[in-house]
């Protein structure tokens, strides 16, 4: 079973057999569309050779391009379901709130007794998403790992817009704050943006997925500020693609 998650920044492909991940790959979204696919009769034909995939394998796809892009031969499911199934499978937990911080959007999904009971997505823009974190790291001239390590003494930042956030951050740099406090401020701004959603869709267990889960400083902030247990999953970035396989095989 192949699970494909067409994200806004990366495309994730997972091959699963007997509940095990046999292979996985991540592609830059633009590169994936340019290099490994072509559009024909309104559907996306995958270059199975180039992707090193067996065209006979069953496929389930999800993702932002789900409507604009229908993959020929693949079933498709909504993103919310894909992520919830992925988290159910990876965590073995049945009651939780999933926080998915992706490249350009954030999703919060409340799961009770194994069923989705409510969900919310961020505002119309990429504010507070992975793109914001990346852009702010580049303004601070540090890499993702460095940015993700600071959670102490956050400076106050109000804008989480991936573009305008830069102006505010520069103003704080001018004020002379150390990089560690600025980086912590960036992480805290993301937390503040998702906090109301976590409160609204409350569970005492929070599962993080998407690229945002790879930010330990953010994970610590969520744990400390909400008082909830934050449960790690093994493959946060592949969670949606795994969920596609889980749905396709009825493994829930």
């Amino acid at each position, binding site marked *: 079973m192949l699970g494909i998650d067409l994200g806004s920044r990366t495309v994730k492909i997972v091959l699963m057999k007997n509940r095990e991940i046999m292979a996985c790959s991540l592609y830059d979204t633009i590169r994936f569309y340019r290099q490994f696919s072509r559009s024909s009769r309104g559907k996306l034909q995958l270059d199975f050779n180039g992707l090193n995939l067996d065209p006979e394998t069953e496929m389930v796809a999800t993702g932002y391009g789900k409507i604009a892009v229908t993959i020929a031969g693949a079933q498709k499911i*909504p993103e*919310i379901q894909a992520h919830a199934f992925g988290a159910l499978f990876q965590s073995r937990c049945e009651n939780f709130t999933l926080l998915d911080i992706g490249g350009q959007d954030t999703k919060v999904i409340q799961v009770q007794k194994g069923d*989705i009971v409510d969900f919310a997505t961020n505002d119309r823009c990429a504010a507070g998403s992975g793109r914001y974190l990346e852009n702010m790291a580049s303004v601070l001239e540090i890499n993702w790992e460095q940015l993700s390590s600071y959670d102490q003494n956050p400076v106050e930042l109000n804008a989480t817009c991936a573009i305008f956030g830069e102006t505010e951050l520069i103003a704080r740099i001018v004020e002379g704050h150390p990089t560690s406090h600025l980086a912590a401020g960036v992480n805290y701004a993301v937390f503040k943006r998702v906090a109301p959603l976590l409160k609204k869709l409350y569970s005492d267990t929070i599962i993080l997925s998407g690229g945002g889960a790879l930010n330990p400083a953010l994970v610590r902030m969520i744990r400390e500020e909400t008082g909830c247990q934050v449960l790690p999953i093994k493959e946060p970035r592949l969670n949606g693609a795994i969920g596609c396989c889980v749905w396709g095989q009825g493994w829930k």
Partner: protein
Amino acid sequence: MKKIGFTTSIPVEIIYAAGQVPVDLNNLFINSSRALFMLDLAEEAGYPRNTCGWIKGLYTAALETDIQGVIAVMQGDCSNTQALMETLQMQGREIIPFAYPYDRDPEMLRLYVEKLMAYFSVNWDQVLQAKKDLDQIRQHCRELDRLTWQENVVTGAENHYFLVSSSDFLGQPQTYEQEIKACIQMAREREPNLDEVRLAYMGVPPIFTNLYESIEAMGARIVYNEVQHQFSMPHSSDHILDQYLAYTYPYGAFARLKDILPELEKRNVDGIIHYTQTFCFRQIEDIIYRSHIKKPFLTLEGDKPGKVDARTRMRLESFVNMLKMRGKGR
């Protein structure tokens, strides 16, 4: 016959009594193939980008149509209406103010109605006769609505179209009557829809042009259009004043809830879609509806006219899917 534009439902009986043609500017705007362009024109005139799309559409619609004047609902609808009227006045349009009293005071409403009657030089007999004529057509609205939720033979889109158009009866009550009767007749011959998911739609009419079709393609159907249902004046009353006091839309969230809650039960809906317009004060009222309505609730937001965008579609699909899974669990 002279045409009179209006910004939201008003006692349309008065205009018909005066032998003039009412034009709901909202319908004119959203049904235009140039809707998106009309919005651009308003922005070129200086309307800010962060203002409601409907207000901008109404501005252009009011300027482009050969109307004698615009009845502006200054209380009980949107506060942007004031600036809309002022900018239309600047362009030489005649403005006729109307208001629904916030506290639903019958005496105040009488004053506003009588003021409007005086403007059009009509008396109570004429207005009540016009009401009698329109009430006959409204009977068909009630039947179409019943066929939607009870017999399950009318689509959400048909329900929306006929009820939303009952604000002005397309300016041609006879044509409207023929159309709705034809739809009812056609629907009666259909097999009932075996809905997997029954949805309620609340809030102002959508700026999306294919919302109902998109939802039906997902295996769900809208069996209740809250505000559109109100436009059709569903509560029979002998007097026009009682009718516009029973009408809930202009009297705030709590008045609307009194109508919504029993309807949700009666129509056996699985979930609610609350549509709000980007930049609208009603986005704040979402708090009230969410806390009072104990059913799965999805808030949608639309900005400019056009098809349902990818993100909204994803949210709708997920919501419908979630309700389907719940249904199976029962």
